[in-house]
């Protein structure tokens, strides 16, 4: 039992406790305010606990259920913060007596955390399904919305399909290696490569489905459109971060630079996602669907980082995840705060009607498009460094070409916001909490873009000692040494 629990990060029991408390409170008296307070406090506590490992950790992941390494710490921090953002977005937006909403969110967060930290198939599966099932409830949240149910049933069927595929793959992997360790099976087994290859392919299908990489992405736009805005944000941000973390962990031991089947599939999916996501978004006028396309494309970029192991690979992915999380959450928060139909026509003239909101939205879009001074620019640069360093030429070309497509639709929204307003109707404003969230995210996006040093240093210090990182030690250049040498 000690081995089982030795890796358990304290944040997980804290979240579990929070969930229990929330259950108790709702049973006693339903109150949205109390629910969100408890949920936020739980998240905060869990966040703080990331830096105090209660139990000593041996440092060797074999045979452990959890790996609370630097990668987990970083991902957990992102997950906790983004789900806190989701909660703030949801405040007063999800109808009355919505404390279950926060409960489900907490549950989903717990699932995401478990997934990100798991070293074992069972644990991973548990986390995945916790997240998946709580998402189901969240997607179908709006009882009156006819599309909510449609989105939920689509998600249910497709998620079930993908879960089954994933499980089958895990089973094959287990059959091949006899270990439930959550990692890509080695191809050098005694049975030949067929079984591990099939296992990897099936597992990847499951993971790609949740990540919504092309061609497993088809559910995402529909679900995002049908789900409430905070939930869409949760799917696009929290869930994807967790999934990407798990994917990275799955391939931690594999050499992705070798041209084998898994690497090829990853590369193909990356290219398809970049183009598919951006092209899909190009044709959309609904902003939620558009952001779905955008998030698909960003998965493609992240896969490029994953496929570029080396001194920059995971660090760049980490920075990119942060940039993506901030900008996407911000965009959804702005979408929620605007109280207009989430299509481009509704946002026309936003700069005249609500300049601050429009400015924030523009910042988020600029960040997503990778234009300075927002953090997205630096993050994309970082990923390109990684790609160049690993000589991923084809992927880089795809990134450049698809980014240009991306620019078009991001800027198209900005343009629509700058056009004269069709008519000035006083729409309801978002909550002050949401406004504060938007402001904070906008400021973070710009400030981090101007001064990314802290972020880089933080990610690097977190990822440096982790076994997941197979980086050559990176010597930071001391400019004053090299600039002035004769």
């Amino acid at each position, binding site marked *: 039992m000690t081995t089982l629990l030795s890796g358990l990060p304290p944040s997980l029991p804290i979240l579990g406790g929070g969930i229990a408390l929330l259950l108790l409170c709702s049973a006693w008296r339903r109150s949205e305010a109390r629910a969100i307070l408890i949920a936020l406090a739980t998240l905060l506590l869990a966040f703080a606990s990331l830096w105090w490992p209660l139990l000593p950790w041996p440092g060797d992941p074999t045979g452990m259920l959890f790996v609370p390494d630097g990668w987990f710490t970083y991902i957990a921090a992102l997950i906790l913060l983004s789900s806190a953002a989701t909660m703030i977005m949801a405040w007063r937006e999800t109808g009355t007596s919505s404390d279950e909403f926060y409960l489900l969110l907490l549950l989903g967060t717990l699932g995401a955390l478990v997934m990100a930290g798991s070293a074992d198939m069972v644990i991973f599966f548990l986390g995945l399904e916790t997240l998946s099932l709580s998402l189901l409830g969240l997607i179908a949240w709006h009882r009156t919305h006819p599309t909510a149910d449609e989105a939920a049933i689509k998600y249910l069927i497709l998620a079930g399909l993908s879960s089954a595929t994933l499980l089958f793959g895990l089973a094959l992997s287990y059959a091949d290696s006899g270990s439930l360790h959550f990692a890509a099976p080695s191809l050098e087994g005694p049975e030949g490569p067929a079984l591990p290859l099939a296992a990897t392919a099936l597992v990847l299908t499951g993971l790609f489905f949740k990540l919504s990489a092309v061609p497993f992405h088809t559910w995402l736009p529909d679900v995002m459109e049908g789900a409430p805005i905070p939930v869409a944000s949760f799917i696009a941000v929290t869930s994807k971060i967790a999934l990407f973390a798990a994917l990275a962990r799955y391939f931690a031991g594999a050499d992705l630079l070798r041209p084998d089947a898994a690497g090829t599939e990853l590369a193909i999916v990356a290219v398809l996602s970049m183009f598919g996501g951006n092209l899909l978004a190009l044709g959309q006028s609904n902003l939620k669907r558009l952001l779905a396309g955008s998030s698909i494309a960003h998965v493609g970029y992240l896969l490029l980082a994953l496929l570029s192991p080396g001194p920059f690979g995971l660090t760049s992915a980490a920075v990119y995840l942060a940039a993506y999380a901030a900008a996407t959450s911000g965009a959804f928060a702005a979408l929620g705060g605007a109280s207009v139909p989430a299509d481009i026509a509704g946002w026309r003239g936003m700069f005249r009607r609500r300049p601050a909101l429009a400015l924030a939205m523009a910042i988020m879009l*600029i960040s997503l498009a990778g*234009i*300075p*001074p927002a953090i997205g*620019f*630096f993050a994309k*640069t*970082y990923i*390109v*460094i990684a790609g*160049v*360093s690993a000589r991923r030429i084809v992927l*880089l070309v795809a*990134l*450049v070409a698809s*980014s*240009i497509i991306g*620019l*078009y639709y991001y*800027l*198209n929204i900005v*343009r629509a916001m*700058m056009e004269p307003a069709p008519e000035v109707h006083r729409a309801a404003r978002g909550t002050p909490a949401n406004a504060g969230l938007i402001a904070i995210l906008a400021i973070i996006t710009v400030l981090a873009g101007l*001064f*990314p*040093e802290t972020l*880089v*240093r933080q990610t*690097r210090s977190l990822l440096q000692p982790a076994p997941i990182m197979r980086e050559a030690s*990176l*010597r*930071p*250049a*001391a*400019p004053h040494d*090299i*600039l*002035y040498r004769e």
Partner: protein
Amino acid sequence: MIALPALILLPAAGGLAAWLSDRSRQASSLSWWVAITTILLQALLLLVITRTADWGHGPWLAHFSAPWIPALGIAARMDMDGLSLVMLWLTTLLSFPCVILSARDVGERPGLFNLLLLATIAGINGVFLATDLFLFFFFWELMLVPMYVLILQWGHEDRRRAAIKFFLFTQGSGLLMLVAILGLVILHQHATGIVTFDYFALADTPLMPTAAMVLMLGFFIAFAVKLPVVPLHVWLPDTHTQAPTAGSVLLAGILLKTGGYGLIRFVVLLFPEAATRFAPVALALGVAGILYGAWLSLAQDDMKRLIAYSSVSHLGFVLLGIFSGSPMGMRGAVVQMVAHGLSTGALFVIAGSLQDRLHTRDMRRMGGLWQALPHLSSVGLFFAIASLGLPGMGNFVGEFLTLLATWRVSPPMAILGTVGLVLSAVYSLTMVGRAFLGPPHAGQGTTHTPPPADFGPRQMTVLGLTMALLLVLGTYPQPVLDLSLPAPAHATPQPEGPHP
């Protein structure tokens, strides 16, 4: 020298101030005055920098460095050599017509207009100063955003298409350059183990010929889009045509010059061998630009499109000069850039003023404007003549030197280039003839019951000074020629220390 970042921060801060001063809505022209003051201050600052520069200690005149993202070897490093100084002066000088002539007449939200204008200028200043490749790229991208908004907000009828086209072309090619920059950084890291974006360190990277060629092409394409080089010029006519007057002036006057500047600083100097091998192709592209631009220029009915295509033609000479492989060509290219900035900038002012007055850019609906607008027309005639490269004007010096440098490398190219001079006469005079001379167009006078107002003293002063500058540049270009040779990438500037 702390003044270098100040050159970037000052316009940015001034822009913010102009924007804020517009909020009060007390005096509508307040933000305009703030903008003017900012530009004046910038000119003063540049004067101070020029005065206190480190003359006589090598080619680099001023230096600034501060850590920015040391984790990746990125520093906020700026260095100024003569080339940067010339370009900065050009920027500052052209800011005046932008602000004085066009920003004054902009309709709604002048504060925002001034903010965007000054922000673009700040970005351009940054581009001309940065010697850290990341910082350079940062500014390179940064200057596009306000420009995009300017075109989108104050542009003409087809502005949406033009703005997005502008943005996609420049940004897309910029991404290629980003990949090339990072490729260089990574190769440098492989060679030395050090990650740095420092221009001087990267210049020493040992490169295989193929790698150097590929990286050089990455840079070249980005700058070629900006310059622009045929066939990557297609964004330019649309953008110039649709942009507001100040936008056109900024675009033609300065923004295009960042392409030429980049070609000199980051293509020829960073990859000398690759650039030499590439030179024949570049020369051919330059000549193609000269001829194609001139040819299409003649076919246009839209006055701004005509000027835009003439820009394509003129900047072909810049490409010729840069890739002629001699200092003479480089100097000629710089003079050509300065002269083109002044003359074409002024032509855009004139075309913009005509559009304000006549509500059309179509030369089929102009004609005989000299009678109604003698001042405007005579100024237009002057700049048309300047742009056809009359000796005694700056353009001739640039064209002559670039052609002379080209002749040494390849006489046929130079001969084709001089054919471009003939064609430039054709389209310039055609423009003058169709717009200003001839009998008045039938539609005029009846549809515009009050006759359009001629240029007043404000416009005449600014444009007169521009004329004077062109004449001085044409007859006494030596100061610019002396300054314009870029400092070699290997001559590392002295760190800040004993001499301020």
